[in-house]
């Protein structure tokens, strides 16, 4: 399982790098889905099969479909791509990237100083997760349902096309 962990970790990092450097939104989205699949494999390797299934179903399924719908509704043309490519000028980000790479090297150094704690070889089953979720974390579940309701109402309110802006769009097509 070590090979699975390190290989999918490398895939996740590379595909996330591709996400933040693409100029076409759909290409970036496809790389993001690859990255989420890699993280799901890592969850599976870590002994969390329920989290892995949720990652694929909800993240790579539902949330990415929302992104695809919005990209299709925006229907951005080729000029947006060329503009993105101009914005991704290496001069603008090479300095911060070198400084951040130094910080990452420090993080790797600091985390490799301590040896000893390895991942437990046991698998945490969905049953245990469910018992914890509807036992001590019941209040959290209620709060999550309130949050989802607030998100639903907010999205409905924001996504509604009111008469004023519809009339304005009708004037100037």
């Amino acid at each position, binding site marked *: 399982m*070590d090979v699975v*962990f*390190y290989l999918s970790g490398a895939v996740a*990092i590379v595909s*996330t790098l591709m*996400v*933040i450097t693409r100029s076409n*939104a759909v290409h*970036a*989205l496809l790389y*993001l889905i690859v*990255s*989420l699949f890699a*993280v799901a494999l*890592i969850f599976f390797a*870590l*002994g*969390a099969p329920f*989290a892995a299934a*949720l990652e694929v179903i909800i*993240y790579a399924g539902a*949330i990415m479909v*929302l*992104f695809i*719908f*919005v*990209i299709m509704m*925006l229907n951005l043309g080729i000029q947006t791509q060329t*503009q993105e490519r101009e*914005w991704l000028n290496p001069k603008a*980000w090479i300095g*911060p990237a070198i400084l*951040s790479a130094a*910080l*990452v090297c420090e*993080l*790797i150094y600091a*985390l*490799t100083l*301590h040896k000893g*704690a390895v*991942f*437990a*070889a046991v698998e*945490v089953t969905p049953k245990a*997760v469910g018992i*914890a*979720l509807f036992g001590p*974390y019941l209040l*959290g579940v209620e709060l*999550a349902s309130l*949050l*989802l309701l*607030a*998100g639903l109402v*907010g*999205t409905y309110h*924001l*996504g509604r096309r009111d008469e004023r*802006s519809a009339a304005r769009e009708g004037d100037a097509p």
Partner: protein
Amino acid sequence: MASVPMEHGLLLAGILFGLGFLGVLVRRNIVFMLMCVEIMLNAAALAFVAAGSRWAQPDGQVMFIFILTVAAAEVAVGLALVLQFYRGFRTVDMDAADRMRG
């Protein structure tokens, strides 16, 4: 899984979070910025699952489910805002909205 140190899992989560943060900083397209926020949330969830796996407790996966809920609500509201933004400004450039006026 007997030989992967827990630090490597946390390190991976940290690198993914940093990449998402870098994306938020360098991109000006609002759709890309939302994607990068998703990457950051996902990295935080990975850190929780890694910690839960280290002590073989279900709490990490419970927190993962909560983060998933927050991410779903955030992306729904965020994408509705993107659509409103595009209707108002006819662009997806964040810098077009540098004034707080309707």
